[in-house]
């Protein structure tokens, strides 16, 4: 065991002397973390529109007119989906706010003198700010709708005629009925009066003031089960830790080729140790380096960049499994490339497409559906799932077991395949 540790320690010592290798295993991932974290942080601070799940239970011309008005207003990214799906999205933290137009909404909108139109907000409580903005935009749209109604003489005449008929039909003649009918007749003249007042361009509530708020907004809260990352660095540090694994596995796969071309492999093979010890030492060196550098990186993320893992034990588990996977891959890579250049070429040649596919460059959830499905063959994807599961997705132990099992499985298979095919001939 001492000999294995000595060999692993030597490899690590050499890695840290090799400036390029050190760069790829330690600094490159750190720079990625800060760069992408800062980039996405800026994006999310910008005037992006708020994602809103819109459920139209009314399905009338009126409700659709309101939706069109909301879309035109800007500031919201509307997604019209069925109620169940919308609720699910809020629960999962994919959407912060859900807006429901209940049955009768359209009718109320067309006849605001009888009933105030109502919408129902379903809100993830962490998204209060977003909900507030959604409220504002909804009120504005309803106000604009009311103003449009008031300034449309034909439509208001039609509404008034309809209301007059209803009143005459159901209310017995009385002084109150007469007063009310007079009021309705007068209201038909509001647009003309507004025109004469020169109120164009004034806030909508100056006009609709007489009728109360243009929209009644109810609100319920739904606790999101899984929230998105609280902080864009939570994603970028996950990716950076993946790059540590990639850099580490390529560096160490090269180290066997380097030992061969330098002739030191011959000395190792002549020493009184078995080839199994040699393999174990290479694996241990890779595992130690990736674990230590990943831990250092995420510690930096936690202390300086405000990353808050949802579970430290699961994070430790994810780190261990990710490292096992990539140290196995390291062994397989070192079989394919016999010379330093070949090992590096094969290593990076495979690492780049697989990590692109696995979400190492662009976050997985931004990829098209079909690509996400192909990504299942990428160990990078499973690593990211495990890392993100522990950092911000709030995985349970059970949820964590799937990616971890896949990672350890890939690692063991790759290590065994590589180790058994590794040719020790030094010529």
């Amino acid at each position: 065991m001492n000999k294995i540790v000595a060999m692993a320690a030597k490899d690590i010592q050499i890695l840290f002397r090799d400036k390029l290798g050190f760069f790829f295993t330690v600094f490159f991932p750190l720079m990625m973390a800060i760069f992408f974290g800062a980039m996405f942080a800026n994006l999310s601070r910008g005037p992006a529109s708020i994602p809103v799940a819109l459920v139209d239970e009314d399905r009338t011309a009126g409700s659709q007119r309101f939706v069109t008005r909301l879309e035109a207003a800007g500031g919201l990214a509307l997604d019209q989906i069925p109620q169940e799906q919308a609720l699910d999205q809020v629960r999962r933290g994919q959407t912060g706010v859900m807006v429901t137009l209940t049955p009768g909404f359209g009718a109320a909108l067309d006849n605001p003198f009888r009933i105030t139109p109502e919408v129902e907000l379903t809100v993830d409580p962490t998204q209060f700010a977003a909900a507030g903005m959604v409220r504002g935009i909804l009120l504005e749209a309803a106000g604009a709708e009311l103003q449009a109604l008031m300034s449309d003489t034909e439509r208001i005449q039609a509404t008034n005629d309809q209301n007059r008929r209803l009143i005459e039909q159901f209310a017995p003649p009385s002084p109150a009925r007469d007063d009310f009918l007079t009021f309705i007749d007068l209201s038909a003249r509001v647009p003309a009066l507004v025109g004469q007042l020169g109120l164009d361009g004034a806030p909508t509530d100056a006009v609709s003031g007489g009728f109360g708020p243009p929209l009644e907004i109810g609100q319920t809260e739904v606790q999101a089960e899984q929230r998105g990352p609280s902080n864009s660095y939570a994603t970028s540090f996950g990716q950076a830790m993946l790059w540590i694994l990639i850099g580490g596995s390529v560096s160490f796969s090269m180290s066997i080729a380097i030992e061969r071309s330098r002739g030191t492999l011959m000395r190792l093979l002549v020493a009184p140790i078995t080839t199994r010890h040699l393999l174990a030492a290479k694996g241990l060196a890779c595992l130690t380096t990736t674990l230590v550098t990943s831990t250092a990186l995420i510690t930096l993320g936690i202390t300086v960049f405000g990353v808050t893992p949802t579970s430290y034990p699961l994070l430790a588990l994810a780190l261990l499994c990710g490292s096992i996977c990539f140290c196995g891959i390291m062994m397989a890579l070192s079989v394919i490339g016999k010379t330093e250049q070949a090992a590096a070429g094969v290593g990076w040649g495979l690492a780049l497409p697989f990590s692109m596919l696995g979400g190492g460059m662009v976050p997985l959830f931004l990829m098209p559906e079909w690509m996400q499905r192909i990504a299942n063959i990428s160990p990078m994807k499973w690593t990211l799932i495990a890392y993100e599961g522990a950092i911000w997705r709030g995985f349970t132990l059970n949820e964590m077991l799937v990616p971890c099992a896949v990672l350890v499985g890939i690692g063991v298979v790759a290590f065994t395949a590589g180790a058994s095919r590794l040719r020790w001939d030094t010529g």
Partner: protein
Amino acid sequence: MLLFDHVSKSFGDLRAVDDLSFELEAGEVFGLLGPNGAGKTTAINMAVGLLEPDEGVVRFAGKTFDRDPREAENRQALGLAPQSIALYEEISSADNLRFFGRLHGLKGSDLEERVAACLDFADLTDVRKKAVSKYSGGMKRRLNLAVAIIHDPDLVLLDEPTVGVDPQSRNAIFDRVEQLRDDGKQIVYTTHYMEEAQRLCDRVAIMDRGRLMALDTVRALIEAHGGPGKLAVQTGDKESIHDTTDPLGTLAELQERETVEHFQYRPPDLETVFLNLTGRALRD
């Protein structure tokens, strides 16, 4: 202790080592002399367990033991200085020695003692903390040799330890080999320089194209295969060369006939032995 018994090794059609037999004797420097491609390194690689013979056996054998170099633990007692320099250039000579010492089970103060002794042996104590990449060729060669003996092995195999080294450094290496011999190590020394074999080796195995051509002490080899020496004589403006085993007699004979102004005698050496055995010169 090291025993080769009818050992052969082929690479494809090429018989790199062909029916090689010899046995090392206690406390000797054993030379493997042969031109490029003779099979010296292949033989060494089999001796240290890097290669498995196709035929025959390679053993560490004595009265009470018989061990296969392919088994890891049996290699504890041997040290190899490979033909091409094999060192970790990024780290210092002390760290190289320390690492290979640990690999052979040394630790603590024992390890540090051996590291210091080997640095001294290689005359690298002053530069022990410098990265090996900064060393000259001669310094690397000496370290390459020192690493082979960090664990104080009984059997030391030196594969062309003077390749690419200037005459001064070469002499330094000769001194060290002699020092190892005086410490009672058994040494296998391969070279294609006959002067080295002649100076250092107790017995020499002459190899060519994988085959063992002759094996004996230097003196016996020359006696058996050296043939006559060469006596070059200048008389007047004439120069002549005479083959002779009795240079004084031949010179006296010549002087009876004419006045010898200059003469030079070159006794037979391993070069002539090789030429007589193979019909070719040792150096290409």
